[in-house]
C-alpha cells in the first residue's frame, strides 16, 4: 500500500496555491491535512499527478471574528479549533462536534477546510456547518465567491469547487443568546464515520415557542442534509415531546438513505428518527437552560 508516483509542490500562501492550481488544473490535488487523501493514495484510489501542499500556507491558518461571524482559515487544524477557548465560548457546538472526528492524532493534522472540501457524506464538520448556517469563502484565479453551506455539497465527495478554486475560509454566524444546540452520533466504534449524525439548533421565543430551528443530518444521505420538512413541524410550535416526535417522524420520512455494510437504508431511516428526536430533545433542554 505505497502511494503512486507524484510530484510535490509547496504553496507558501493562498495566492501561490491558486497559481499552482491554475498551472496544473485537474492533474493536481490539494494536500491539506492529508488524513483522507494519503489513505486514498496508498490504496491507489487517488493517483494525482501533482500534490500542492497547503501546509506551508500560513495565511490559511487563522481563527478570528468578523462582523458577528466566527471566521476560520481552511488550513486551521481541527484540534486547534477543538481546544480553542474562543470557539468553545462562541460556537460550542463546533467544539463538541470535533470530538467525534476521528481521533486526536488525526485531528492534530486534519484541517477544517480539508474535511469540508473532501465532502465525505459521513463526516461531521460539514453537517455542523449546515446546522450553523455557515458559508464558505472560495477563491480562484477568477476571483472570490461566497457559497452558502446549503449549496456547497452536491454529491458524495463532490462540491461546487472548480478545479482551479480553493476553499480559503469558513464563516459561521455567532448563535443568538439562548440558542440550544446538540450533536449526537451513531457510529460502530468510537471515532468511526457516522451511520447517523444528527445536529439540532434551536431558539425559543419569550413565550417558549420555537422561533428558529435547523436540523442537519450526516451519514444518511449521499450529502449532508438540512431537514426542512422536520424543521417546519417545529417552527412556531411549542416544543412538546409530541412535537419533537413529529419532527423526528418527518425527518425519517423525508430522508433518502444510502445503504452500506454498516447499516442498511432502512436502518439509517430508523436511526434518523431516533437521533433527530434525541438531538432535538437535548437542544431544547439546552435552549431552555439558556446554555448553548
Amino acid at each position, binding site marked *: *500500500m*505505497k*502511494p*503512486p*508516483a507524484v510530484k510535490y509542490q509547496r504553496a507558501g500562501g493562498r495566492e501561490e496555491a491558486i497559481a499552482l492550481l491554475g498551472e496544473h488544473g485537474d492533474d493536481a490535488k490539494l494536500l491539506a491535512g492529508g488524513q483522507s487523501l494519503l489513505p486514498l493514495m496508498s*490504496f*491507489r484510489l487517488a493517483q494525482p499527478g501533482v500534490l500542492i501542499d497547503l501546509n506551508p500556507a500560513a495565511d490559511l491558518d487563522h481563527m478570528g471574528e468578523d462582523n458577528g461571524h466566527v471566521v476560520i482559515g481552511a488550513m486551521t487544524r481541527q484540534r486547534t479549533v477543538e481546544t480553542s477557548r474562543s470557539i468553545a465560548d462562541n460556537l460550542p457546538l463546533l467544539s463538541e462536534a470535533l470530538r467525534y472526528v476521528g481521533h486526536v492524532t488525526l485531528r492534530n493534522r486534519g484541517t477544517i477546510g480539508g474535511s469540508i472540501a473532501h465532502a465525505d457524506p459521513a463526516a461531521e464538520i460539514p453537517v455542523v456547518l449546515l446546522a450553523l448556517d455557515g458559508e464558505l469563502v472560495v477563491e480562484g484565479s477568477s476571483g472570490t465567491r461566497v457559497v452558502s453551506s446549503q449549496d456547497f455539497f452536491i454529491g458524495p465527495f463532490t462540491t461546487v469547487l472548480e478545479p482551479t478554486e480553493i476553499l480559503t475560509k469558513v464563516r459561521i454566524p455567532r448563535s443568538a443568546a439562548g440558542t440550544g444546540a446538540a450533536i449526537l452520533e*451513531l457510529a*460502530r*466504534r*468510537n*471515532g*468511526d*464515520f457516522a451511520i447517523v449524525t444528527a445536529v439540532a439548533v434551536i431558539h425559543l421565543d419569550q413565550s417558549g415557542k420555537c422561533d428558529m430551528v435547523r436540523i442537519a443530518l450526516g451519514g444518511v444521505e449521499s450529502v449532508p442534509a438540512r431537514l426542512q420538512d422536520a424543521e417546519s413541524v417545529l417552527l412556531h410550535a411549542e416544543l412538546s415531546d409530541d412535537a419533537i416526535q413529529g419532527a423526528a417522524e418527518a425527518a425519517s420520512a423525508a430522508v433518502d438513505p444510502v445503504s452500506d*455494510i*454498516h*447499516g*442498511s437504508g432502512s*436502518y439509517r431511516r*430508523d*436511526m434518523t428518527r*431516533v437521533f433527530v428526536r434525541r438531538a432535538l430533545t437535548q437542544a431544547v433542554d439546552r435552549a431552555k437552560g439558556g446554555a448553548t
Partner: protein
Amino acid sequence: MTATETASSKLVGSSVRRIEDHRLLAGHGQYLDDISVPRMLEAAVLRSPFAHADITSIDASDALALPGVFDVITGRDIMAVANPQPIIWHPIPDQRKPQFHALAVDRVRWAGQAVAAVVAVNRYVAEDALALIDVEYEPLPVVASLDSALAEDASRIYEDWPDNISGSLTYDFGDTATAFAEADLVVSETFEHGRALGCPLETRGCIATWDTFAGTLDVWISTQSPNLARDLLSEVFDLPVHLIRVRTPDLGGGFGNKFDFYSEEVMASLLSRRTGRPVKLVEDRRDSFVATVHSREMRLEYEMAFKKDGTITGLRGTTYGVMGGALGTVGSGPSWASVLTCMGPYKIPNLNVTVKPVMTNRSPFGSFRAWGVQNGNIVHERLVELGARRLGLDPHEIRRKNFPAPEEFPHFTGVAFAYDSGRYADALDKTLAKVEELGWHQVKADARAAGRSVGIGCTFHVEPSAYGPSRILNLVGLQHSGFDEEVVRIDPMGKVTVFSGQINMGQGTHTIYAQLAADGLGVPIEDVKVVTGDTDSCPYTGYGTGGSRAAPLGGGAIIRATARLKQKVLRIAAQLMEASPEDLEIRSGIISVKGSPDQNVSMHDVGDAAYRRLNGRLPEDEVPTLEETDVYDPENMATSFGCSALLAEVDSETGVVTLLDFVVTDDCGTVINPMLVDGQLAGGFAQAFGGALYEELVYNEDGQLQTASFMDYLIPTASEIPPIRVVHQETPSPHIPGGIKGVGESGTIAGVSLVGSAIDDALSDIGVKVTRFPMTPERLLEEIRRAENEEVSA
C-alpha cells in the same frame, strides 16, 4: 506432587515482569519488516478481482519493462517447480480435499487469490508494476455463500464433484434417538458465526534467500511454526530439510493466523531462486484481508434434549464449516474441532454430531485462536440457557447438574477427548460470588427502574490445550505430531540458555520458560536466556506454537530437562566440595551443603569444571558440558476451564450494545505467571467481543469482500472493551509435569456466547434470543422487533 513443587519454588506462581519487554518498549524489537538483507529486493502480489474465473491470458511484458523490475512469475512458473500448498489436518475420511498452488493456475476460486508476483528494487516500484500486468479473465458463476453453495441448483466450484460439500463425518455415542424420543424438552436452534480473521497488528511477511550455488534456502518468516514451515517448504520444493533454514524474528502477534503455511513463502523463494537475490515479501493490510486465512464462519444446527429437572440427555446436530475456494494448511480442522467440543463441560450420554465442510468462493479457511472451539461453546452454552428458559430453571442449576464431579475425571466426552481434571462447580460458584460482590444485580435493577436495559450474561468454557499425544493426533488425521523438544544448557560461566522450537509472539513464552528453568536449577531469572526462532539451532516441535501448547508441553520438557541437569550440577559440585550430592542444595546459583551455607561453590565453578578446567574437578564418569535435552509427548491433552460473567447494556432503540464490566474465573492448572495469564485472558476476550459485536468479513453476492480495510473490518478499541477482573483457581493437570495447562484460547472460546447471554438477559422482558454473531446493532434491532411481534401475536 505439583502442589509441593510449586509451593517450594520462587518464581513459578509469581507475576515476574517480562524479560522480553525492555527492548520492545525501547523500540528495539526486530520484526520481519525491520530486517534488511544485503542485495535484497522486494515483491508484491497481483490478486484476482474475480471470485471465480478462468484466467485466459497473462501479459507481464509492460511490467517487466518497467525500470527497477527484476522478475514476474505466474502460476505456470510455480507449477513447473513446486507442488501444491500442503494440507496437514485430515480428520474426515474420504474427504475431497482441493489444494491450490501458490499462484493460481488457469483458474481463480476466490477474490484476492494470488495470480502473479513481481519483484523489484523496492515495494513502491513493485506495486507500480502490478498495475502493468494485463490479465484476462473469463468470469464463472460465483458460489458466494453457504446458502448458495448448498442450494439445489448450486453451481459447483469443482465440476467433477456432485455438489459443493467437501466431506462429512459423524460421531455417534450412546443412543441419541431414544434420548430425544424420551426427552421432556428438545431445544433446537441454528447459530451462525460470521467470517473473521486474527488481524495481528503486524501483517505476515518473509525474506527468502535461495542460494543456487550452495543449494540452500534460508527464509525469515513471521511464523508461529518454523519447523512446520521448513518441513512444508521441503514438501513443496522437494528440497531436503537440512538445506532449508527458517528463522523467525519478533512476531507482532499471531493468533493462529501465523501458524498456517502460506503461498507468499513459496513465491518469495522462487523469486529469489530466479533472480539470485534475497526477496522480501510482506503482505500489506489490504492483502491481509484476502491472503491471510479466514476463520470462525460456521452454521451450527443443533438440538439438545432435556429432562424436566434439567438433566441433559442428548445433543445432536451438524456444523457446516464455510470453507473457501480450496483448503488451507489445516483443512477443515477448526470446523471439526467445533464438533469435538460442542458438549462442552457437560456429561451428555447420547451424542450424534456431524461436521460438513462446504466449499464457497471465499478465501481459504484456517487457524485463528480458539480454532472452532468457540463455535462449540456457542452450541452448548446457548442451548443450555435457552433450555433453562423453556424449563423455567436457573441455567446455573442446569450447569451444576450436568458437570462431571471432580472425582469423575478423567471424563470421556463421548467424542474424542478425555478431560483430565476439573472443579467446574467451584469455578461457577466463584464467578457468581464475584458478581454478588460487585453488586451487579443492584446495577441491573437500578437500570431497569430507570428504563434502561442492562443484563448479566454468564458462560462456562472448556479449553482443550497441550495438543497433544502425537500418536493420537496422527490417528485423528494430523500429518504432523504433538511432542515438544527443549534443550537446557549451562555454559562455562554457569549461566543458562534454553533452546526451544516454540515461538514468542507476545504471550511471554521467554519469561515463563526462564521462570521454569530458573526454578528448576535454583538460579536467578537474570541468569537465564531463552533462544527461539531458528530451525538450524533450535530443537524440533511436533506442531508449533498453537493449541495452547507452549506452557504445558515446552514447559513440561523444561521441567524434566532441568531436573536431570540439576542432578549433574549437584554431582559435579559434590566432587568440588568433597560432599555427597544428596546433601547439597542450590539457591540463587550457589550450591551449598544443606544447613551449612558457608560450604559452597557457585554455578560458575561447576560450569568451569564441566567445560574448561576438568582435571580433578569433573567426576571421572561424567562427560564434559552441561546440557540436557527433553522430548515431551504428553499421555493426554490438558483441559483448562472457567466461568465468566458480563455486565452489558442494550439501547433497545438502536440495537447498540455497550459492554460495561466482566469477570472470569479461570483454571489453567498451575499458574506460572498470574500477570501473563491475566494478559492472555484479557486479550482473548477482546478478540471474542470483537467477533461477537463488531468484526465480520462481509462478502457480497459476487463474492467480493466488502471489508478489506480497518475502516470496515472493525477491531474493537479501548472504548469498546470493558475492564476485566480475573479470579484464579488452580486445579493442576494430573499428568503434565508441573500441573500446567494452556490458557491462550480460553477468553476467545468463552467471550462470544457470553455476549449473547448478556444481551438475552438485558432484553429478557421481550424474549430476545441471540443466535447470530456478530450481533450488529441493525441485526439486534431486527431481533428485538421479531421478539416484540412474537410477544404481541402470542
